[in-house]
């Protein structure tokens, strides 16, 4: 990040902990940043797209558009709240009397909508049924898979925190997030002129411009980058830092359950073994609604049929409440079923338990941006992209520096390692962006109705990414950048055409119908295509105007 950077990066291993304080951390920043930049770029780009999970899912399920529109206008058969609650309890009594937990979702926030019931079955698995709002009888919900099986935008959510690889993936991303924090701290230490550089951008100066770009995006969004990495780790703290729970509670699943019960529900009663019928629920619900100030969303009964039973009434967060409150929890009121006594009340936005639990819930809310509405989602989107640009410019800067002057960090293997890094840069930055747009193409081109269709779409994503890596390693770096940028531009700019051909919906007609979610997805993709095109032209211009071309590569990474 400074001039010391160059000197201190002399060797992969020799620079560790040597030189002055700043020099040692310049070394750490360079190498820790480099080895994690590719993975972190992928996490940041997909995490940024995950902000718009719902619009992407909406675009990817065009069959549902008409259905969704119809649902809004369809008059619902409305049964009263007390009728719905009674039907729910009747059904559970008749069919799932011995379940250890009942959960009723009587209605939407307006008192209309569907009536659903949930319970723990004999294997302690969550099970569900839907009841008719006309007569309270169970409705046979169609088990047939939807026409267009897809993970939709949720793919980006899952990928960005566990790479579709379960716990192993979660750990890999967690380690990368910690490495990112180390790289951020060492970057700040290295950066002696943090405020001056904040206002410095020297375009068309080769290596300098890359450094300036890297500094500007990093400094500008530094608080966001710290926050998003730290809250990401904290959300999964129980997985990453089990030592405390192990030492104080034990290693068994039951011990972990004991920990979370103590944390969230300190007064949870034990089963008494004495029979007591589940009381009529309406009075509890009405009192609960009054205590928390929200319409009822769910009624949860622990130990139904036992004298120790508890009745929890949970509320619906309305739009205004999610705009203002960072804590994502709704309100809740908990009663003893036997005495009707209030056991626990949680106000909307609060948390069960103490300050630490509230902090935990706020950190989750901060990371997932469920508050603040569209304005904040766009802010996260832009900051997330800046994070991705920070990774990309850092990785490219590493190579731009070394194209003129070999630093010989890897001894006799240096040339080969540089070649590998160049290839990884292309595949991680251009290739992954290509794969993300390719995923949308896959959604329109994979035949409808085939088995495991959602997995085929994922297959398109991973296959394109793997292909881009092979391509990047086979072609000279400059050609690899150009060809992948060209492919990216092509896929992006043609996506609205593909959509019009396959679904008959044109971008402009989406706007006319007020379908801004679909139109927004396509406009962002088209903007990405235009930026990729501009990057391509800029690079070609450089190649013509300067010989030998220095192979400067644009960092354009918009999805």
């Amino acid at each position: 990040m400074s001039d010391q950077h160059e000197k201190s990066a002399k060797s992969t291993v020799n620079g560790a902990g040597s030189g002055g304080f700043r020099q040692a951390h310049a070394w750490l920043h360079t190498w820790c940043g480099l080895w994690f930049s590719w993975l972190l770029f992928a996490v940041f780009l997909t995490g940024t797209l995950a902000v718009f999970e719902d619009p992407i899912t909406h675009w990817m399920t065009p069959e549902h558009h008409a259905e969704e529109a119809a649902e809004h206008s369809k008059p619902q058969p409305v049964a009263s709240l007390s009728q719905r609650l009674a039907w729910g309890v009747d059904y559970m009594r008749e069919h799932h009397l011995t379940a250890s937990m009942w959960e009723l979702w009587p209605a939407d926030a307006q008192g209309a909508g569907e009536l659903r019931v949930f319970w723990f079955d004999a294997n302690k698995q969550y099970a569900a049924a839907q009841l008719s709002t006309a007569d309270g009888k169970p409705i046979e919900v169609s088990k047939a898979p939807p026409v267009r099986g897809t993970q939709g935008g949720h793919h980006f959510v899952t990928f960005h925190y566990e790479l579709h690889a379960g716990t192993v993936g979660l750990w890999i991303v967690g380690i990368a997030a910690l490495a990112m924090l180390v790289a951020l701290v060492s970057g700040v230490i290295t950066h002696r002129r943090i405020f001056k550089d904040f206002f410095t951008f020297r375009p068309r100066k080769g290596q300098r411009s890359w450094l300036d770009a890297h500094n500007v995006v990093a400094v500008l969004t530094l608080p966001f980058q710290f926050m998003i990495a730290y809250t990401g780790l904290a959300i999964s703290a129980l997985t990453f830092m089990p030592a405390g729970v192990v030492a104080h509670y034990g290693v068994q699943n039951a011990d972990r359950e004991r920990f979370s019960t103590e944390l969230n529900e300190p007064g949870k009663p034990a089963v008494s073994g004495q029979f007591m019928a589940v009381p009529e629920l309406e009075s509890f619900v009405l009192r609960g609604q009054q205590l928390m100030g929200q319409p009822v969303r769910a009624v949860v009964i622990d130990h139904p049929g036992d004298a120790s039973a508890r009745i929890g009434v949970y509320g619906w967060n309305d739009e205004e409440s999610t705009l203002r409150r960072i804590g994502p929890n709704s309100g809740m009121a908990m009663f003893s079923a036997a005495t009707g006594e209030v056991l626990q009340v949680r106000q909307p936005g609060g948390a069960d338990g103490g300050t630490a639990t509230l902090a935990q819930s706020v950190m989750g809310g901060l990371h997932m941006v469920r508050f603040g509405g569209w304005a904040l989602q766009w802010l996260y989107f832009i900051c997330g992209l800046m994070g991705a640009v920070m990774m990309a410019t850092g990785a490219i800067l590493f190579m731009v520096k070394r194209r003129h002057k070999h630093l010989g960090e890897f001894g006799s293997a240096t040339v080969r390692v540089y070649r590998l890094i160049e290839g990884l840069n292309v595949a991680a930055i251009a290739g992954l962006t290509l794969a993300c747009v390719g995923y949308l193409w896959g959604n329109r081109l994979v035949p409808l109705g085939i088995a495991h269709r959602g997995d085929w779409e994922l297959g398109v994503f991973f296959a394109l990414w793997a292909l881009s890596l092979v391509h990047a390693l086979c072609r000279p770096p400059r050609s690899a950048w150009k060809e992948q940028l060209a492919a990216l531009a092509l896929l992006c700019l043609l996506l609205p055409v593909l959509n019009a051909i396959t679904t008959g919906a044109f971008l402009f007609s989406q706007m006319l119908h007020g379908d801004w979610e679909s139109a927004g997805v396509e406009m962002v993709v088209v903007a990405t295509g235009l930026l990729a095109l501009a990057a391509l032209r800029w690079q070609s211009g450089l190649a013509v105007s300067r010989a030998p071309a220095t192979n400067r590569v644009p960092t354009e990474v918009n999805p």
Partner: protein
Amino acid sequence: MNAGRITRRAAPFVQRLLAAVLGGYLLASAWVVFCGALSTPKAEAVLVGMQFSFAIHVAAAIWAFSPVALSRMWLGIVVPSAMLAVAAFVLMHWRG
């Protein structure tokens, strides 16, 4: 460059890497256990410990790659870890 020379050159780096990754994790873990032993309610205290533990691991990693002698670097990781662990042990047994 023979294998012996590479090993000699890489040894300090490997030590610092181990200190940052494993040492830092152990220090952070000892901190969480200590938090749980120190304060009540226990579950809340453990959660607070976990929430701060990542900052501690990052600080340890930054320390591990700072330009201080290897022996001092190790002391800076091992001593606080041991102190936290012993304090946690004593507190847990003293409180019962």
